[in-house]
């Protein structure tokens, strides 16, 4: 039924905003609302294995503020953060409560414009304007529009990764994998990751990169803005599986007019060929190839291609946890609920489950399970060398298939 969930509701746009901002080094975030929301969200980020690199504060508000519409706490907190820490930008996020009572946050900030040095970027939806993809998209677009500054020139052999945020499962390992591949294959250097581990100053300087690589659809408007403002070209990629990884290298090489290292590519292709041959032989003996996938749109699309097209598994259900992105034509089930996941598992009794932890939990029958997305239930990640993306990610999936397929 609508609104009721046993595990996790679809995260709101406000949660997406906070997730996208929280891994930026030196970002200053003020949450305007009851303090418990901020405290809870900080702890919640740890539970999706995220690392907080921003400075996040709450104003807290009390009943007087709510009843009397008193915005003094917001005003004082902005002035204090501006004066004490002197950040170039302050991101102000209105809580759901502030959104519901209709406080004019922009009005408060407008009144402060002559007293504050920092540029203030506000998020007022309170979580009522859509799911987390809306919030992530908004932050990435705002960074491109308001934070990235013109550069003197493009730096050859550099690129930005756009759309890798701390809500991405195994984001740290995936970033390392992509950086390693593009370094080995093309000698490229990553300038900035929107929005994990980079500083505000690195984001400001991101326009000097020669290419932007968009890893999830929420980053496209960011890349389009950077193309419009700075003439930066971009490609879309989600390198899950061998072919998608090779496609990414090829697209990057083409865009930058480079030739991938032949020795490196031959070695990777040869290893991929052997792994695929071995796995297909193994899967031929499998009683069932039924597979169910769940997660974000880009992951579901990429996994369905790798598992279906390259490995020959039968993708019986592909469930996307959020609304259908603009232009997405695939016959996936969007806004998939817990009941949808339970139903897919009951209907197909899949031998292979690739998805978020809620999907994996739904299956009690023997099958191969691999968590590829959040929401997370209990899994703790400490390593950064086990990517799901790139050649190593594909190798690791095949290794699991060879060892654990039922």
């Amino acid at each position, binding site marked *: 039924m609508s609104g009721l*969930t046993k595990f996790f509701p679809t995260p709101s746009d406000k949660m997406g905003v906070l997730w996208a901002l929280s891994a930026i080094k030196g970002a200053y975030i003020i949450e305007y609302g*009851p303090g418990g929301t901020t405290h809870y969200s900080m702890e*919640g980020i740890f539970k999706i294995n995220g690392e907080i690199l921003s400075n996040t504060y709450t*104003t807290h508000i009390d*009943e007087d503020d709510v009843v009397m519409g008193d915005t003094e706490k917001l005003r004082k907190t902005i002035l204090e953060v501006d004066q004490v820490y002197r950040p170039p930008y302050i991101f102000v996020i209105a809580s759901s409560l502030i959104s519901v009572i209709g406080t004019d946050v922009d009005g408060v900030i407008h009144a402060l414009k002559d007293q504050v040095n920092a540029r203030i970027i506000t998020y007022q939806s309170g979580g009522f304007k859509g799911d987390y993809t809306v919030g992530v998209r908004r932050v990435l677009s705002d960074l491109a529009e308001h934070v990235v500054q013109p550069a003197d020139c493009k730096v050859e052999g550099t690129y930005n990764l756009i759309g890798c945020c701390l809500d991405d499962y195994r984001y740290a390992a995936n970033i390392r994998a992509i950086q390693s591949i593009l370094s080995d294959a093309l000698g490229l250097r990553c300038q900035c990751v929107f929005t994990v581990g980079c500083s505000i100053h690195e984001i400001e300087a991101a326009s000097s990169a020669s290419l932007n690589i968009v890893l999830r659809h929420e980053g496209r408007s960011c890349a389009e803005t950077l193309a419009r403002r700075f003439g930066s070209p971009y490609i879309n990629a989600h390198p899950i599986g061998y072919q998608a990884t090779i496609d990414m290298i090829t697209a990057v090489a083409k865009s930058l007019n480079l030739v991938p290292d032949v020795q490196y590519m031959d070695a990777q292709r040869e290893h991929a060929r052997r792994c695929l041959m071995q796995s297909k032989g193994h899967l031929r003996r499998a009683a069932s190839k039924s597979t169910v996938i769940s997660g974000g749109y880009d992951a579901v699309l990429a996994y369905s291609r790798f598992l279906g097209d390259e490995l020959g598994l039968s993708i019986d259900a592909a469930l996307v946890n959020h609304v259908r992105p603009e232009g997405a034509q695939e016959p996936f089930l969007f806004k998939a609920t817990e009941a949808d996941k339970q139903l897919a598992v009951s209907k197909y009794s899949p031998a292979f489950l690739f998805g978020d932890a809620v999907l994996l939990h739904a299956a009690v029958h023997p099958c191969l399970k691999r968590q590829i997305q959040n929401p997370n239930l209990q899994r703790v990640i400490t390593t950064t060398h086990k990517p799901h993306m790139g050649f190593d990610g594909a190798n690791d999936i095949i290794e699991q298939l060879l060892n654990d397929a039922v």
Partner: protein
Amino acid sequence: MQFEYSLDNLNRLSQISAPKHIKSLSNALYPGTHCPLFGAALAACEVEGLEALVIGTDECTYYTQAFAIDRTTVDNNFWSYTMDHSDVVFGSAAHVGDAVREIHRVRGPRAILLVTTCVPEITGENFDALAASLTDELAIPVLAVHTEHFRCNSHISGIENTLLALAEVMQPQPIEPKKVNILGHRFGSITESELFRLLGTRGYSIHLTLPSKCHIQDIEAAPMAALNIVSDFTALPLAERMRERFGTPYVVFDKFLNPRRIDQCYSDLEAVLDTSLERELAPARQALFDKMEAARPLLRGKSFIYGNSVMAAFEVSEFLCELGMTPIVIQARDLYKNDDVYIQEILDQGHDPHVASIANIAPLRKLYPMIKPNFYIGHENPHDLIKHGIQQVTFDAASSRVGYELSTSIIDNLLDILDGKKNPMLAMMGAAAGHPGEVKK
């Protein structure tokens, strides 16, 4: 307006007579206090046979579920009803009613808790009426607990109100004279405590510890106990309610450190049980006095910031003063029962420290180089403390203890830290950071 983080922004202890006198060092708070929703989850997530439905925004419900999974298991008793803008404008009661019916159908619980949050409280829907109506319809207790954070400044009221709500599932029982309930104990196992061992020698056993991992049927039968022992003030409203409804007497046996207060707790217990415990208590009491005497020369003049512990801020600080230590800053959440007594006792010993609102570490860190305490009592990033030569003491290991042994173990903890025996990680970090002398040997 110029902002400067300074202790001068705070009130001194002598100026504290109401919660509003406990000021924050800054307007920008980090990380901020937990909210009552967290308190409700803490109190209810381990009760089998009870299902809880959180009504609120995606993030309130999402993070509560994450906490419940972390605290218990994936298949815990917490559910979410996520409000959208339509619920805000047109009301959510009908949908929440359907959600409760669905939970009832799927899980067949003996009781259901409706936990409201900030947004449904601000829209003003009457969830008490909804709970009453669902109680009639489903023939099980459906209880409403209100956890809006804009009417308080911590999670404490969430614990209090959830425990109080659970009184409504209780049923009159024949009294079992040798059964007691422990109310409010939420850290570790009470069965390992001095108090429990003592009760055991007189043939008493515990029927229920609340909050804890228990079944709702244990709560229903709680009035069978001849006595409630309140080991944390959060359970006082529940104890009062049980006395009103079932005549169950209670004694307060909080996690006090000062032996005078522990004496009083045991004295109250002796009066209710109509027995003398003196013979069994004497060794533990003497051990504490011996320990205090031995510790005073070592701790005299050592300064501290009180951050947090499972005990009461002012009572702990007062005890540390009795050991000769000097409070510089006491971080406190609120003013609770008898805090005025502890405050006066600290003042009477010649100390008048600053008092800061809890859960706001960031500005305090900027002051460490100036105030340079010997100890930080509570949770804080050890890296930030060690940089300034501050030794960290957490009292977590003593959290399950109640009675003289609690105070004794606290002193042992302090002396071990002072002696470099405890916290080897901190010692290692100090050495690695090139400041081996900061962890005193």
